[in-house]
């Protein structure tokens, strides 16, 4: 995949560092909310195409999918893929009423998405000196997505893996930016690099 298509190596390095810093803040904040130590991966930055995004949905075990759009001088969507495994334990740690039914698992998935997306984006936009607004998250079924109808060709993916200490649970969050927003981002990164 051509990772150097829309941002150059320097910008990429800067973005990576910004993401590392946001992740550090996010992990710290999450630990306060979830009462469990959170393990965050170093964010992976890549370019993707609609096909590439589609392959991101393939998961062997049962997963939940949610998405959340954001607006501001950059816009895009956050997609989270959350394993069904571990949801119940996590719900307990987050003081959800027990036992949890399908409905409360959905609620948990939405809340997690909001927290993860918020935590990841917040640090990033603060450092970039921009503002953005997160819309409400919603659940979705990737099979029902017609990716042939996407009207974009390339998007910037920032992928972060979350894991929890002592609980078998995994989730992935990707922040997707469209081409126009990538240009804005590149501009902001240049300012910082000057």
């Amino acid at each position, binding site marked *: 995949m051509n990772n150097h298509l829309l941002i150059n190596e320097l910008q990429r390095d800067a973005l990576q560092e910004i993401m590392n810093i946001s992740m*550090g803040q996010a992990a710290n904040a999450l630990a306060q909310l979830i009462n469990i130590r959170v393990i965050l991966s170093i964010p992976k930055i890549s370019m993707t195409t609609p096909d590439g995004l589609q392959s991101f949905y393939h998961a062997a075990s049962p997963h939940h999918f949610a998405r959340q759009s954001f607006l501001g001088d950059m816009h895009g969507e956050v997609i989270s893929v959350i394993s069904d495994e571990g949801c119940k334990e996590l719900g307990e740690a987050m003081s959800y009423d027990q036992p949890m039914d399908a409905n409360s698992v959905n609620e948990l998935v939405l809340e997690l998405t909001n927290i993860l997306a918020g935590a990841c984006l917040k640090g990033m936009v603060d450092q970039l000196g921009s503002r953005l607004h997160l819309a409400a998250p919603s659940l979705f079924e990737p099979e029902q997505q017609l990716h042939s109808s996407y009207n974009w060709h390339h998007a910037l993916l920032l992928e972060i893996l979350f894991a929890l200490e002592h609980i078998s649970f995994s989730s992935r969050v990707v922040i997707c930016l469209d081409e126009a927003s990538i240009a804005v981002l590149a501009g902001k990164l240049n300012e910082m690099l000057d």
Partner: protein
Amino acid sequence: MSLAVTIADDSLLSRKNVRKAVPTDLVADITEACNGVEALAAVNAGKAELLFLDLQMPVLDGFGVLEALQKQNANTIVIVISADIQPLAVERVYKLGAFKFLQKPLDPSQLRAALAEVGLL
């Protein structure tokens, strides 16, 4: 006489940010290192009386550098500047003999305060 300072960080942006944050009244001779091994080399070459150290780095990370410095009893002053701000990391850094822990993104006034604390300003 100028102070031998090394900035060890794999990110160019962060190295720049540290450089920008270093107060102009500190006369410094600055060397940059992109990973832990380069940082140690700088220390051994006498280029690091003061070391700004990132934790997440390739080849050898910041913890590795601190351990090595502790072993060789180096009298380098280490200020850790890190994205990982979870209490566990902070605790470990101090145990390994760092002088100060500062969080990223680096706040110049905090850096200034830290330098004053060591007596460099």
